[in-house]
């Protein structure tokens, strides 16, 4: 289209229309409505089609960003989505949940002077993917002839789904074992409906099943079968472990086992997976606090706080040890949380939870912190201020300070190497120290992102394919062996 670079630079970034804050904080519907086709085209026109494609290098899976955006300017939305899918199989998810402001949009030339003016790559990705899903019958991908080899995947989070999607196309028989009764991992049990509608995830899983992937739900590996059983009893040729981190951390302070204290995992699983926000139609109860304190500053903390307010809490406070700039949550989520009336008590950390006689939480005592010298990572370290405390009332505490590696599988697979924190050790392609066993996602890296887990899945699928096809050749030993 005939716009000059200068004209493109003069256009302001288009934000997505959203439910008003004072209205949406009482419902679980998605917050942004998404672009209209006209808005998408207008936003796409801001892209300068830079020759050196800085945004592409900012993307962990190298989505061809300027190219898909060019298709959007031509209103070839479905083609745009399919182009993204060559690199990223879940664009409708990633467009919504990727931390674009630290990835592609962070390095976008349009945002060089003013970060907020980067091309809205995530919004465009979401638009294209939604358009494709809503306007086209699901396209069955091309699948190679069956090669007779069976691969088992443990966990149906983003890493497992990616491995499944790739291997089924290479001609493998693919079986996913998922502990829960629904697939998607954190996408269904962690990230709330108002940020990622579950129908988006369900459509993707249905599409995988349609291409021939078998999903066994309610199957906890490490209990139902060990990894060795998968090879010996069930005849799989390779196993991919994508079970996520999956073990909550509590604080080492008095009162952590009181009624009203939850891990974010529990709180969010109740609300999202078990749909207790629709209680009593769905029968899993959740406690609606009057005053809710959420401890932590990541996406998980924002999701917990915003869930609490939607469930009907009168007041929700985020308690975070560091400063605002250091919050690991996506900028958009912090902003949304603030708009929805969530309070932030920064540079503070709880030292005690108060209780009543019935064992319920009644309040919390916190210590104030200040920023000290930078640590190894360059972040200024929070240091407690002596004798500087404050207290406030709350009846619900959600602990969201991260997780650890769940040992269910690693303990039953003693011949597979883990690091000192219990995460599985792999080479860059996801090969573990145990022959024919691969791993990726949060169980390897610790809590990370959807896109990095998908990237790990993609690399592992490639490694599995390479190793299995070459293994038939007797002389082949992988160089890491």
């Amino acid at each position, binding site marked *: 289209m005939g716009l000059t670079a200068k004209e493109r630079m003069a256009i302001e970034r288009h934000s997505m229309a959203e439910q008003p804050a004072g209205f949406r904080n009482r419902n679980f519907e998605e917050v942004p409505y998404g672009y209209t086709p006209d808005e998408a085209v207008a936003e796409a026109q801001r892209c300068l089609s830079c020759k050196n494609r800085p945004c592409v290098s900012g993307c962990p899976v190298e989505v061809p960003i300027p190219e898909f955006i060019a298709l959007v300017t031509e209103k070839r939305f479905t083609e745009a989505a399919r182009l993204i899918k060559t690199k990223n199989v879940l664009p409708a998810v990633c467009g919504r949940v990727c931390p674009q402001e630290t990835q592609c949009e962070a390095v976008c030339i349009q945002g060089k002077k003013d970060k907020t003016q980067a091309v809205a790559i995530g919004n465009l990705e979401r638009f294209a993917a939604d358009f494709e899903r809503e306007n086209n019958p699901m396209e069955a991908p091309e699948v190679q002839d069956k090669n007779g080899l069976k691969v088992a995947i443990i966990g149906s989070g983003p890493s497992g789904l990616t491995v499944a999607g790739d291997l089924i196309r290479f001609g493998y028989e693919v079986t996913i074992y998922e502990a829960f009764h629904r697939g998607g991992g954190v996408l269904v049990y962690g990230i709330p409906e108002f940020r990622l509608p579950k129908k988006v995830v369900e459509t993707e899983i249905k599409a995988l099943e349609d291409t021939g992937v078998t999903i066994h739900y309610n199957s906890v590996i490490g*209990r139902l079968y060990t990894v060795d059983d998968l090879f010996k009893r069930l005849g799989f040729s390779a196993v991919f472990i994508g079970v996520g981190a999956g073990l909550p951390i509590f604080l080492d302070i008095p009162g952590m086992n009181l009624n009203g204290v939850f*891990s974010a995992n*529990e709180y969010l699983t109740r609300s999202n997976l078990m749909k207790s926000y629709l209680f009593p139609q*769905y029968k*899993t109860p959740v406690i609606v606090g009057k005053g809710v304190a959420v401890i932590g500053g990541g996406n998980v903390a924002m999701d917990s706080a915003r869930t609490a307010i939607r469930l009907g809490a009168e007041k929700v406070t985020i308690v975070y040890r560091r400063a605002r700039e250091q919050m690991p949550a996506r900028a958009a989520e912090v902003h949304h949380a603030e708009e929805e009336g969530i309070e932030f008590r920064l540079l503070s950390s709880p030292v005690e939870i108060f209780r009543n006689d019935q064992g319920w939480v009644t309040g919390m005592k916190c210590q104030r912190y200040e920023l000290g010298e930078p640590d190894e990572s360059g972040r200024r370290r929070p240091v407690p201020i002596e004798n500087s405390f404050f207290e406030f009332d709350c009846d619900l505490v959600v602990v969201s300070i991260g997780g650890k590696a769940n040992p269910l599988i690693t303990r039953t697979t003693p011949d597979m190497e883990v690091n000192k924190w219990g995460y599985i050790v792999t080479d860059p392609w996801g090969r573990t120290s145990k022959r024919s066993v691969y791993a990726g996602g949060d169980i390897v890296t610790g809590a990370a992102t959807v896109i990095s887990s998908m990237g790990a899945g993609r690399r592992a699928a490639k490694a599995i394919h390479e190793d299995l096809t070459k293994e038939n050749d007797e002389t082949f030993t992988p160089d890491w062996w």
Partner: protein
Amino acid sequence: MYELVEKSEIFNVHKMVIKAPGIADSMKPGQFCIIMATEFSERIPMTVSDWSTDTGTITIYALELGISTLELARMKVGGSLYAVTGPLGTPSEIRHYGTVVLGGGCYGIGGIYPIAKACKEAGNEVISIVEARYSPMFYHEKELQQVSNQVFYATSDGSRGKKGKVEDVIAEMLERGARVDQAFFMGCTQMLERCSEATRPIGIPTKVALNSIMLDGTGMCGACRVTVGGETKFACVDGPEFDGHKVDWRELQQRKSAYTEQEAVVYQSLSHECLAEKKLRGEL
């Protein structure tokens, strides 16, 4: 999937035999499943009291208490459960102890059976003690007798065996000078606590199968946390069996009561729904 192939009721305990071949294949004594009757249900833990690899079935005994167990109670043979996840939990430690006492109340009457069986097979002298309010409430009797050297009964009204509870039978045994090398208890929380108190003074090693509130059953959420010996443990993966002399019973009781209010709400919502349905069908 998970078809209900057999069902019977002994007062408010419902025996349910469920098709789940994979689970039956991997099941070990002391383990449990997490069950959802329908897509809308809670996930509730149920001890697996028996299983058969031949028929590919597992047997549970569900004590009807609130909405979730009521949903199970209303299921009909031929219907299917929405989800059965298992086996879960660390299996009971089975070895040659010498004389083993197993105490069971409510769902534990069925629940101790596989542990008794395995203990017997491991060459132990197995003494089972079961309690109920009155005589007709016992179940799974013949099976338990087959795997026990002796079975004692205790009833609140004295209609069978000793008038009293499991711990009264134990006290009597100990008075007679019986030697007990290991005790296992399964049943409601008060019973577990009482029995642990009975074995504490003479230091009988005591395992109790705790029944804290659970959600995922894989160690992911911490809903099931209990304090044992001053340490926080996750009952679904570290347990459900723990040293009965080290459990913080007060905390467990409090945590179990966390949802009393919601449980009442949801129970009432169901009864109303069903009354309405019945009216529609002209049954009322």
